[in-house]
């Protein structure tokens, strides 16, 4: 019994100890302390060391988290406390030993940064609270107490209250929905969607003028990736072809606009809109060229082939072979922006509008495709290719169609992207771009528009917001992806199938019954 209690807690303490050690080794502890001090309004100059107090605070919070997570939900309070105690002690001991080493480094003045770059003496001192030899004891005590505190907190605000809160949210949400459904006059039902669009339009109109260029940039970026996400979703989510080289189509669009609309290397000033159209066409052409030969391939083979395709395009764009044509590694600069009714329409605000409009348009198109014969055919192909074919669906054409439409979206986004940055080069179309877009789908939720928007925000918006944490952001990002997949594999906002039968029923009897979640979600 007791052993069954102790060993997991021990393990936890050990794990968190190692985590903390890694934190120290990559200097993340100092970073977090800095963030905390920023939270409390102290203005810390970049690269300078925050006050010791904040490090203490961070360690306490860490310890409390350990205690919280260690004390199991279904245990008696005393047991919880016991578990927390064990974990806290272990953590303390582990770090204590680690402290001894660190302290030794300080005392002897050895510089380990040739190997462990982040382990600067001042940050070590900060971690040890400048207490030298006795800091191990300090840490031991601190972690034990903090961990106990954590489990105490857990005991106090039990999970019930939390669940009650959620229930409240849920019932409130549904209640509102029901009420809304119940007392909406007919004209609203008729034009409701239209009005909603209008409202969104109005909302979208004002912020870009107010909130400064940086936010415009971030919003625009997210918007572009939403478009890309929709494009890839048609390929991966609807027609079920795993594509890892989506950036190739993106590049097609970007480079078409760049080459046709920049002074160098060719100086064909075709204008933005026509070249954007050509960009879309080019992407589609590329899709056909890729699609025809590899249509027959299955899951992972298709994946690697498309991956290869993406790399081929990138390398070619960069190579000496095409330098005279594509500008090689230097890329293409001074890409002219769009004009509207004669005058320039390419300020950051204008771009935000363009992107938002295009985004809404793509969502619209996507919705209509998904709810059409074609969309159903795609889903069927994804579910069971053979059976779909035996039910009269032409696999070849439908797959190819999906590929082309997806590519078209990519081309569109690419064109806008290039013009917006006034520059495009090989580095804009690396493998990681394709991976990011795929991640957007999975993180957000395949086949769900809100999911894709959410995913785009999480993957492109968040890193921008996370700029504060400098070069830790990709670390955090990578970690998040894994955690995400483990905790919510179906995505942040999973898709649900339409409730055709019920809706039809509602249509028949003209009074709209409260339409809360379908039988299938």
């Amino acid at each position: 019994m007791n052993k069954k209690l102790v060993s997991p807690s021990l393990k936890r303490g050990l794990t968190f100890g190692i985590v903390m050690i890694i934190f120290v080794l990559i200097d993340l502890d100092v970073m977090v302390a800095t963030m905390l001090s920023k939270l409390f309004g102290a203005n810390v100059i970049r690269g300078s060391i925050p006050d010791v107090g904040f490090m203490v605070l961070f360690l306490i919070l860490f310890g409390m988290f350990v205690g919280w997570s260690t004390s199991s939900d279904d245990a008696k309070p005393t047991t919880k406390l016991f578990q927390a105690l064990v974990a806290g002690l272990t953590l303390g001991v582990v770090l204590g030993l680690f402290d001894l080493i660190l302290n030794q480094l300080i005392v002897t003045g050895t510089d380990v940064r040739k190997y462990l770059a982040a382990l600067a003496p001042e940050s070590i001192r900060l971690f040890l609270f400048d207490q030298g030899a006795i800091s191990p004891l300090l840490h031991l005590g601190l972690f034990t107490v903090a961990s106990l505190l954590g489990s105490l907190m857990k005991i106090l605000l039990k999970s019930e209250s939390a669940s009650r809160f959620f229930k409240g949210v849920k019932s409130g949400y549904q209640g509102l929905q029901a009420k809304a459904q119940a007392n909406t006059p007919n004209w609203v039902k008729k034009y409701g969607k239209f009005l909603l669009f209008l409202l969104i339009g109005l909302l979208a109109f004002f912020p870009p003028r107010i909130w400064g260029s940086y936010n415009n940039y971030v919003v625009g970026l997210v918007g572009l990736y939403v478009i890309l996400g929709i494009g890839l979703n048609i390929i991966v989510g609807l027609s079920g072809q795993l594509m890892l080289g989506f950036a190739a189509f993106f590049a097609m669009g970007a480079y078409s606009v760049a080459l046709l609309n920049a002074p160098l290397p060719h100086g064909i000033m075709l204008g933005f809109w026509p070249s954007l159209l050509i960009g879309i066409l080019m992407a589609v052409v590329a899709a056909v060229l890729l699609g025809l030969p590899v249509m027959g391939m299955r899951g992972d083979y298709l994946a690697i082939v498309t991956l290869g395709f993406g790399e081929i395009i990138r390398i070619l764009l960069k190579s000496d072979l095409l330098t005279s044509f594509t500008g090689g590694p230097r890329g293409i600069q001074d890409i002219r922006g769009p004009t509207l009714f004669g005058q320039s329409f390419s300020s950051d605000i204008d771009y935000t509008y363009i992107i938002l409009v295009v985004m809404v348009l793509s969502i619209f198109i996507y919705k209509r495709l998904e709810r059409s014969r074609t969309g159903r055919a795609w889903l069927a192909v994804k579910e069971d290719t053979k059976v779909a074919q035996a039910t009269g669906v032409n696999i070849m054409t439908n797959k190819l169609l999906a590929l082309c439409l997806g590519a078209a979206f990519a081309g569109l986004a690419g064109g806008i992207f290039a013009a917006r940055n006034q520059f495009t080069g090989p580095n804009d179309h690396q493998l990681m771009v394709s991976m990011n877009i795929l991640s957007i789908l999975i993180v957000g939720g395949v086949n769900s528009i809100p999911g894709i928007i959410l995913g785009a925000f999480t993957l492109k918006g968040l890193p921008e917001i996370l700029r504060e944490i400098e070069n830790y952001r990709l670390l955090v990002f990578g970690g998040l992806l894994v955690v995400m997949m483990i905790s919510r594999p179906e995505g942040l906002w999973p898709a649900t199938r339409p409730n055709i039968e019920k809706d039809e029923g509602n249509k028949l009897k003209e009074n709209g019954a409260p339409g809360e979640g379908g039988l299938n979600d």
Partner: protein
Amino acid sequence: MTDPIIQVKNVSKIFGGLTAVNQVDIEVPEKHIYSIIGPNGAGKTTLFNCISGFYFPEKGEVLFYGDPIQGLSTNLVAWLGISRTYQNIRLFNNLTAVENILIGLHRNLKTNWFEAIIHTKRFQKEESGSVKEALRLLDYVGLKGYGDFLAKNLPYGLQRRLEIGRALANQPKLLLLDEPTAGMNMNETAEATHFIKRLRDELGITIILIEHDMKVVMGISDRISVLDYGTKIAEGNAAEIQANPRVIEAYLGPGGAALSEKYKKQRLSNAKSN
């Protein structure tokens, strides 16, 4: 007797060394229920696959209304009006029942993706029409109210019905049912049997049936043929087949015929005694 809707002329299908179907001839008149029986691995399903275009038979030909259709890809076969169900149910699991049927309707719809984007009148008409049709079929196969369930969440019996519904959506002239009552209990089987009859009587669809449950087979089929090791060993109506010793051999193994005779006598005598 009406001209045959489908003719299978000495079709053979060979996998590597093994001959799964060996020079089988079948001829099914319109509006008939035709059963194919035989022990497991006799090549019944393989024959189905040859008809529905999954396999390309090495020898022989499959005539549908007199036109050769062997080697046509499955979607064309479906397009011609031959639909089928599968031994191990193969629905589009993550789609709702209605959507499954809507996909079945695919072949009858004409609009393309572009019309879908710019909701043309034609598209809207077709969409709403197809939805109504789908719901009607749903009702017909007795899944009313289950339309918005994901196919995988449906109970087993309903999945079978849904699969038939999907097949019907194709407006088939010929329907291939692969063990439609497998894994059903007595009353379910009875229902299914009755349902299959209705299909033929009301919709006038010709049906080829693979079935192990002899009660069903003998109950509804106009004609039966027996496959064993890929070859057709007997053909005829229920009575003939029951009488045919080779069939009994095939099922009960050598000497089976004699045995079955003995049991029949016993049963009769028992009947007399009480």
